[in-house]
C-alpha cells in the first residue's frame, strides 16, 4: 500500500524546464564593489546605495542562524552571482511587443500569459525573471484608480518619498541574517501603493522565476495600503530543475494603515530537488506586516516547493482592534525540509489573530510548524486562536510543532489546538473498494485536510493550488 502512496505523491516537477535566454550575469562574489555596480546598473539614487551598504556592513557582522529544524550544508555566499538579467532587458522594452519572445514563452509555459488580452480578467501581473521585473500588466487601468503597481526598481526612482518612508519600516535592515543580505543586494520585486479609501479594482500578482544557474534571487516587495483601502495580492514562483542548490532570500513588507485591509496569498512552487535531495531552492524569506488601527492583514500560503523553506509571515498588531490571520498549507515530499509558521505580536487593545496551519509530510521529508504568539502588556483584551494540524503520509516522514506563547497581559486569551493524523491504509482501502484509485484517494484526503485554508485563497489561486496538490476542486458537485 505504501508503494501506491509513494506513487501518488511523487510527481515530476512540471516547471523544471530551462529557458535559453541570453543574459548579463555578474561573476559570483559579494563585496561593496558588487553592490555599487548593481546599484549603478539600476540607476539608483545615492540614498539607496547608502542604505544597501549599511545593510551589507551589518550583515557581515551577523552569524548565520541555525535554530530552525532544517539541515543543509553551509552556503558559500561568495559562490553566488548577485545579478542576472535577460540581455533583451538592457534597453527596457516599452511595450510587450519589444519583449524577447522566448521570455514571453517561458511565462506562457508556466500558465501565466503576459499578453493582457489573454490574461485572466481581473488580475494584474508583475513578472520577475531572475533579477529584473520584465513587465507589469494593467498599469494604466490601475492608475485610473490611483493604484501604483510597478517594480520596486521603478518605485525607487519614481516614488522615492514613499519608498524612503516605508522601506525597512516593517523589516529593518538589521532584522535578521537573510533580511540584511536581502537589503544589501535585492534586485527587484513589486511595489504597490493603494491610496486612501480605494478598493483596488483587480487582484495584483507577482510571478517570480529563477532561470540562470548559480544565481540567487533576492526580491523585495513593499505593499502599502493607505487608510481605509483594500487590496488583494498574490504571488507565485518556480525555478528550473538543477542539481545545485539555489538561494532565494526575499523580504516582503506590508503596511496596513488605519482601517486598511491586505490579503496576501502565496503559492510557492520552487524546485524542490530530486528524490535523493540533490538540488532545489533554499528559500529563506522574511515576510511581515504592520497593522495599524482597525487594520486587517491575512497571509495565506500554499507551500509545496523548495528544498528548504524557512519562512514565518508575521503580523505586528500595533493598532487597537487590528486583526492578523495566517492560513497555511505546507506540503513536503522527497527530502524536502520546511520550517514555517508565523508570528503574531499583539500590541494594541482588542487585537485578534487566527492561525490555521496544515502540514502534510510524505516520503522522507520533514515538516515543522514554528509559531510565536506574543501578548504585550498593552494588549488589553487581545485574543489568539491557533490550530495546527499535521498529516503524515507513509512512515518515514516527520512532523513537528514548535508553538511559542508569551502572554504578558492577564486579560489576553490564547488558545492552541494541535492534531496529528495519518492517511491510513484502511482509508485508502475504503476508497479503492469503492473504485476510487489511490492517487485520487490520496489527493481527496489531502484536499479535505486543507479545506479550511484553500477556502481563503482567491479563486484563480485556489485553482492553481488545487492543481499543485493534484486535487480536483471541491465544490465541483452540488
Amino acid at each position, binding site marked *: *500500500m505504501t508503494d501506491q502512496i509513494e506513487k501518488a505523491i511523487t510527481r515530476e516537477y512540471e516547471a523544471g524546464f530551462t529557458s535559453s535566454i541570453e543574459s548579463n550575469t555578474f561573476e559570483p562574489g559579494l563585496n561593496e564593489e558588487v553592490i555599487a555596480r548593481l546599484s549603478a546598473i539600476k540607476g539608483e539614487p545615492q540614498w539607496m546605495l547608502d542604505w544597501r551598504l549599511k545593510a551589507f556592513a551589518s550583515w557581515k557582522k551577523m552569524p548565520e542562524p541555525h535554530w530552525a529544524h532544517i539541515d543543509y550544508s553551509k552556503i558559500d555566499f561568495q559562490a553566488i552571482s548577485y545579478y542576472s538579467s535577460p540581455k533583451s532587458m538592457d534597453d527596457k522594452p516599452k511595450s510587450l511587443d519589444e519583449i524577447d519572445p522566448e521570455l514571453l514563452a517561458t511565462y506562457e509555459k508556466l500558465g501565466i500569459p503576459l499578453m493582457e488580452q489573454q490574461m485572466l480578467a481581473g488580475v494584474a501581473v508583475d513578472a520577475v525573471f531572475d533579477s529584473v521585473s520584465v513587465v507589469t500588466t494593467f498599469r494604466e487601468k490601475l492608475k485610473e484608480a490611483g493604484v501604483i503597481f510597478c517594480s520596486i526598481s521603478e518605485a525607487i526612482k519614481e516614488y522615492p518619498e514613499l519608498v524612503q518612508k516605508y522601506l525597512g519600516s516593517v523589516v529593518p535592515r538589521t532584522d535578521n541574517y537573510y533580511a540584511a543580505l536581502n537589503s544589501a543586494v535585492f534586485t527587484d520585486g513589486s511595489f504597490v501603493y493603494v491610496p486612501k479609501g480605494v478598493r483596488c479594482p483587480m487582484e495584483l500578482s507577482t510571478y517570480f522565476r529563477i532561470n540562470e544557474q548559480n544565481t540567487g534571487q533576492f526580491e523585495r516587495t513593499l505593499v502599502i495600503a493607505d487608510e481605509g483601502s483594500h487590496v488583494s495580492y498574490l504571488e507565485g514562483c518556480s525555478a528550473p530543475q538543477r542539481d545545485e542548490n539555489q538561494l532565494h532570500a526575499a523580504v516582503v513588507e506590508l503596511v496596513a494603515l488605519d482601517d486598511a485591509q491586505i490579503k496576501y496569498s502565496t503559492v510557492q512552487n520552487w524546485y524542490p530537488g530530486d528524490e535523493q535531495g540533490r538540488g532545489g531552492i533554499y528559500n529563506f524569506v522574511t515576510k511581515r506586516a504592520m497593522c495599524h488601527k482597525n487594520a486587517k492583514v491575512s497571509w495565506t500560503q500554499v507551500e509545496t516547493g523548495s528544498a528548504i523553506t524557512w519562512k514565518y509571515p508575521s503580523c505586528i498588531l500595533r493598532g487597537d482592534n487590528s486583526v492578523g490571520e495566517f492560513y497555511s498549507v505546507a506540503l513536503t515530499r522527497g527530502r524536502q525540509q520546511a520550517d514555517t509558521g508565523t508570528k503574531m505580536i499583539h500590541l494594541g487593545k482588542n487585537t485578534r489573530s487566527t492561525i490555521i496551519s496544515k502540514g502534510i509530510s510524505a516520503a522522507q521529508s520533514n515538516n515543522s510548524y514554528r509559531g510565536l504568539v506574543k501578548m504585550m502588556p498593552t494588549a488589553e483584551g487581545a485574543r489568539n486562536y491557533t490550530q495546527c494540524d499535521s498529516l503524515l503520509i507513509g512512515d518515514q516522514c516527520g512532523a513537528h510543532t514548535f508553538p511559542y506563547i508569551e502572554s504578558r497581559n492577564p486579560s489576553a486569551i490564547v488558545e492552541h489546538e494541535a492534531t496529528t*493524523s495519518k492517511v*491510513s491504509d*484502511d*482509508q485508502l*482501502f*475504503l*476508497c*479503492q*473498494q*469503492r*473504485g*476510487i*484509485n*489511490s492517487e*485520487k484517494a490520496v489527493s*481527496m*484526503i489531502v*484536499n*479535505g*485536510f486543507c*479545506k479550511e485554508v484553500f477556502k481563503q485563497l482567491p479563486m484563480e489561486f485556489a485553482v492553481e493550488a488545487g492543481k499543485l496538490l493534484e486535487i480536483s476542486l*471541491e465544490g*465541483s*458537485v*452540488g
Partner: protein
Amino acid sequence: MLSIKNLKASIAGKTILKGLDLTVNPGEVHAIMGPNGSGKSTLGYVLSGREAYIVEEGSILFEGVDLLTMDIEERALAGLFLAFQYPLEIPGVSNLEFLKAAVDAQREARGEPLMSSKEFLSAAREACKAVRLPTEFLKRGVNEGFSGGEKKRNDILQMLMLQPKLCILDETDSGLDIDALKLVADCVNSQRDAKRSFIVVTHYQRLLDYLKPDYVHVLSEGKIIKSGGPSLAPELEEQGYAWLARQPGEEKSL
C-alpha cells in the same frame, strides 16, 4: 457469478481460510454464519483484494474472470462491493465528494457518460431518503462523527448509489437497533433482482428473517462445514455451532 474453489488464505503468516468452496449464482442471497474467528471477515477481504491477505491456494472466478489477478480497484469497478463491519471515517472529505468520485469512477470504467451534478445530487438525495439519513449528511465528512448505526446506513447508501453486481455485507446488522435492522433489510430487498447477488455475513437470525436467504452456510475454522436452506438459521440460533463441529461427517459443499 462467483465460484470459489479450495480457497486457502492467510494473514501475517497465519492461515485463516483452509479450503473454502462456495458458488453464488446471479440473483441468489447467501448467508454465512459461524463462530468468531472462523474466517467470515477474511472471506470479504480476500474477495475484495485487500493486500495484507495472501491467497495460498485455490481459485476465485467472478463472472468467469480470475479475480485473483485483479487489484482492489478493478474488482470494485467490476461490480464487487464490500460493506464493512466497522466503516471508517475520512475526515474533511465530504460524503458527496466521495460518492461522486466513486460513481464517476464506476461510470468511467463502464464507458458510460458521467452524471451531471444535478442528476447526481438528486440520486444522492433519493438514496439518503431510502436509508433515512438526513440530506445534510451528504455535506459531512465520510462517516465523520456518525453514530455506529449511521455509519452502517451510510455504507448501504454507497451500495444504493454504486449498484454493484455482488454485495458482500460483513456484519452490517451488528450494532443496529431493530428499526435500523429492518431498514437495512428493506434496502437490501429492494436491490434484489435476477442479476444481483448477495453474501451476507451475520451472527443473528433476525436479519435473515427479513432477508430470506436462498442458502445458509456455516463457516468454521476456515471451511464451510454445513450448508442448507433458510431453515438452517433458526436451528443454529437454537443449538449454537458446537454440534456441527463435532460431526465432520455432515460436511457438505455446494
